[in-house]
Each structure stands twice: as C-alpha cells, then as structure tokens.
C-alpha cells in the first residue's frame, strides 16, 4: 500500500529527493594540509589556505579524489574521467574565500543506483543523480556574545561528498531507508564515518506533493536535517503543510526551510531569504581533474564486499531470511562478528543470538559491536554448547549473562557452575518418578485427559534438577510414565 496523504480533496502523493553531504574520511583537507579531526580548539586546524590569505592557492588531496571515486563505484555509478571544480560565489563569514570550491557542471561521479532494504524485507531501487566533491564551510557561533558572531574555520575546507538522489522516493519510510543504506555503504567503504550527531552526514530533503498522475509540483528544500528520525518526521510535516496550503487555495513557493523538531514544524530560513546568484565558473586556480580508466579499475578491484553482495551471500550461504540478512549486513563489523559466530555452527541459531540477545545487550549498555564484552569466538562457543546438548537454550541465556559480566569463557562457566545438562536417563527417570509420586492429584488430572498439566510437570522436574535436565528427555519420560 503506497504512502499517501489524505486531504479534503483526496489522496496526495509525496515526492522526495535527498541531498546527502558526507564528510570524506581523510587525514587532511580537500585543498590544504590542515587536519580534519573533530572537536579541536578553534582555528587550530586552519592553514593559511583555509583562511583565504592573499595569494593562497588550493592543491587537491589525492585521497579525497580516491574516496569520491570509490563511493561512486559503491553506488554503481558512472565515474567521469574528466571533471571540473567551479567556484560557487557568495558572502558568508564562515566562507573565507567568498566562494566555495565545488563541482557543478561536471561532477566526478554521474548517475548510479542504490537498492533500499525496506523493513518488511522487500527492496526498491533509487536513482543517484550525481556525486561531487566540495569544501565544507567553517562554523559560526551565534550564542557566545551579545553583539558578535564568532568564527571558527577548523571545518573550512574539509572535503565533503554531496550525493544527490533522483526524486524517486515516495514515503518517509523510503527516505529513512535511503539514509540508512547510504550510511551503510559509506561506512563499508570507509569513505565517511556516517556520524550524524557530529555532522559527518547531513541531509537536505526536497519535498513536494502531487495528485496521482501529475507532473512535479514546486518543491521545498529542508536544510541540514541531522538524524534519520528527523528526516522522516520533517517529510511528513512538510508534506502535510503543502497539502493544506494547496487545499486552502494557496500555493507552495520554492524556498529553503528549516525543520524544528521541538515545535514539530518546518519554517523558512531567514538567512537564505535573499535570492542567490552564485555566479558559478570554473576555478582558474585548479586545472580540470583528469583520471585514467586504469586508476578507476584499480580502485574498483580493491573495493570491499559491499552490503548488497554480502546480504545475497548470507542468504544463500546461511539460509537467512531477507530481514535477518539485511540486519546482519547493516554494519560491516556486525556482519564480520556474525560470520565468526556462525563458522561451523548452526547459522540460524547464530543469527538469532547475534540479532537478539547480543544486540539487546549492546543496546542496553550503549555499546557498539566492536565494544562487545562477549567476543564472537565466545558467543560461537556458547552456541556450540547448545548444539551439542551440553546446555539447554535456557541455561545458555544465564551463561551468556555471566559471560557479559565476567568476560569469561562459556565452557568454564558451565563447568564451574555445574550447568551441564543431565542426559542420564536414570537420573531424569528418578526425578520424574519423584515428582509424579508427590503430586497424585495432578497426575490424575492428566490421566483423566487434561494434558494441560504437562507444562506444570515439566516445570517441577526442571526445578528439581536445577534446570539441567534435558527438556526433550523430560518430556518423553513424563509422557511414558503418566500415560503408562
């Protein structure tokens, strides 16, 4: 069922395009040798080039070019062997040159395609319009002084990839899936760390609405949305605003807006009110960027296995559902963890444990997979103990908790606590007999045809054996003795 907004005049379709600004993983800036690390003291990561001192010139960082090309390849996109840098001219205090060096007419990466993984396990292809390299601006701090804005240029000149989608998205869910998948791909490639809180990944969201079968109507651009949740909320709120406008006889004007999550509204950005005329022209300080096909081929050959390929492999190799395979491949580190857990073991149990107990524990503790107190080898060993009937699945959960607390080895924990499952028929039989003998009323109940008490009996027997009796054997013996 397609997403739509129900207005007074009927259903409205939402058309969404996304521009993602992804900070390139590199040691130094796009055109200078200053560092890119987050959180440094003001103006300490600024070269004379970044501060646009007279006579300063840009020289391109080879690694940033490589990262853009690798990202393009990861998005199945066309790599343009010749691209040009242009100047986007406007005045702003955190833009020291009075222009941003960007790519305009000839970006380094052209059209591509990305496959979205929807929560229900289905997939959907979305077109990529282009990817280009550009400089980030500095930071303006407006709240430090009553009369002045403070300027820190540490970010000025840091390399960004602007990745523009086609207006192919039709719902907040799809937009969310798009951002998540983009982040996944960038992190697999290690071309962007995907950290949305620190602003390494920012979204501009273009939203318009239309009646079924119409061409595109006027869109609004919501700037700098910094979480997946806000992207989805902003789209919904903006689409509803536009529908209301149209239905009350108004019209949407093309403008730049801001999403305010506290007030649950979008509103026009004051600083962007003035109509811009960016006067793009090729930057005469930089010659066109020319790449060889051999260079592109070399980068392509060295790409890591990307999420779609990994997901397909997981489905075939481990027999996983699309949803499980998607989840397990969302982070390269999680996928690697899972593969270690699953090696030589039951992949479905491994997947369940990785996606459920392990993930729940990590979420509860606010840890990432690489910070997990339980290593993949240890979790694998625990699953081995379940598979060979050394412990039951229920005991395994206790063992897992102990592993989390102590970082201990599951075999040692099981032995130290005497948790090995009782599989000795004689011992289980004795426990069964004892429980039946002590509870004649319940036994009678069973015999008179009420089998619901089976569960109760099992519970009593497990309790009597400290939970260590093999549940399958308990069930069989109980049936035999009671039915006997």
């Amino acid at each position, binding site marked *: 069922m397609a997403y739509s907004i129900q207005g007074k005049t009927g259903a409205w379709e939402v058309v969404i395009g996304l521009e993602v600004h992804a900070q390139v993983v590199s040691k130094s800036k796009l055109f200078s040798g200053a560092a890119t690390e987050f959180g440094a003291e003001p103006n300490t990561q600024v070269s004379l080039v970044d501060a646009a001192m007279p006579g300063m010139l840009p020289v391109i960082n080879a690694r940033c070019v490589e990262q853009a090309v690798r990202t393009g390849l990861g998005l199945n996109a066309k790599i343009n062997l010749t691209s040009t840098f242009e100047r986007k001219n406007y005045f702003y205090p955190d833009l020291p040159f009075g222009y941003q060096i960007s790519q305009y007419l000839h970006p380094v990466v052209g059209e591509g395609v990305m496959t979205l993984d929807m929560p229900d396990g289905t997939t959907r292809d979305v077109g990529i319009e282009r990817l280009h390299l550009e400089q980030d601006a500095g930071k303006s701090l*407006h709240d430090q002084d009553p009369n*002045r804005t403070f300027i820190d240029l540490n970010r000025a000149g840091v390399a960004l990839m602007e990745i523009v989608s086609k207006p192919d998205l039709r719902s907040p869910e799809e937009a969310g899936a798009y951002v998540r998948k983009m982040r996944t791909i960038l992190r697999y490639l290690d071309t962007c760390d995907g950290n949305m809180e620190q602003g390494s990944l920012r979204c501009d969201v273009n939203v318009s609405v239309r009646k079924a079968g119409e061409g595109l109507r006027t869109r609004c651009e919501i700037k700098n949305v910094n979480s997946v949740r806000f992207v989805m909320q902003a789209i919904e709120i903006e689409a509803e605003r536009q529908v209301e406008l149209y239905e009350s006889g108004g019209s949407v004007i093309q403008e730049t807006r801001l999403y305010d999550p506290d007030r649950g509204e979008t509103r026009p950005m004051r600083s962007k009110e003035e109509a811009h005329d960016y006067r793009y022209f090729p930057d005469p300080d930089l010659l066109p960027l020319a790449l060889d096909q051999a260079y592109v081929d070399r980068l392509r050959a060295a790409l890591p296995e990307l999420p779609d390929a990994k997901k397909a492999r997981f489905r075939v190799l481990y027999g996983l559902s699309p949803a499980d395979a998607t989840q397990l491949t969302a982070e390269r580190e999680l996928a690697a963890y899972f593969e270690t857990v699953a090696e030589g073991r039951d992949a479905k149990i491994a997947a369940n444990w990785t996606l459920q107990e392990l993930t729940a524990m990590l979420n509860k503790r606010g840890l990432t997979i690489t910070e997990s107190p339980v290593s993949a080898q240890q979790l694998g060993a625990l699953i081995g103990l379940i598979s060979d009937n050394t412990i039951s699945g229920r005991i395994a959960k206790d063992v897992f908790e102990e592993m989390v607390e102590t970082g201990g080895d599951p075999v040692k924990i099981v032995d130290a606590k005497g948790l090995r499952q009782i599989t000795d028929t004689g011992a289980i039989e004795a426990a069964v007999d004892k429980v039946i003998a002590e509870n004649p009323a319940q036994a009678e109940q069973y015999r008179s045809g009420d089998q619901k008490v089976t569960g109760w009996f099992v519970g009593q027997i497990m309790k009597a054996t400290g939970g260590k009796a093999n549940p399958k054997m308990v069930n069989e013996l109980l049936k035999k003795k009671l039915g006997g």
Partner: protein
Amino acid sequence: MALDIATVRRIARLARIRVPEEELPVMAEELSRIMDWIEQLNAVDTSNVAPMTSVADMRPHQREDAVTDGGVPEKVLANATDRVGNFFTVPKVVE
C-alpha cells in the same frame, strides 16, 4: 545603455560593495560604456569552439593525504581586526 540603475544596484549588492544611490547613474553609465565596447565580441563566430578551460596543458599535481599544515592559530589570526580568543568575529548574524 547596457546596464540600467536597477542592474547596477543588484550587482553591487551581489559584490557587497556599497554604491550610494546618488552614484548609481554615473556608475551605470561608466559600466555601460565598457559593456557596449565589449559587445563587439558578439560578432565573433564561436559556434564550433569549446571554451578555454585551462591555459596550461597539464595534469595538476595532487597532494598526498598528510597533515602538513595548520596548528598555527597565531599566524592565522595575526592580522584580524577583531578577535576574541582564537575566534574571528563579525557583527551578530541572525540565522
């Protein structure tokens, strides 16, 4: 006249150069005279010419990705008219 007063006002604003209202007519006239002279280029047939993109026929040198610069806030801020700590300042901007 190639440039009217409104156009000069608009480009002066784009260029962030204050041109007082009373000077606009003179400026418009001067700039128009230059632009009228430049119009001669319209007579050149360039239908099969690609615009020049670079003077030097060469591949630009690319930098290795290494931190070789920065860490010099005093050099960066040495000529600032108004600084607070290690910040540059401007009149308050309303977002």
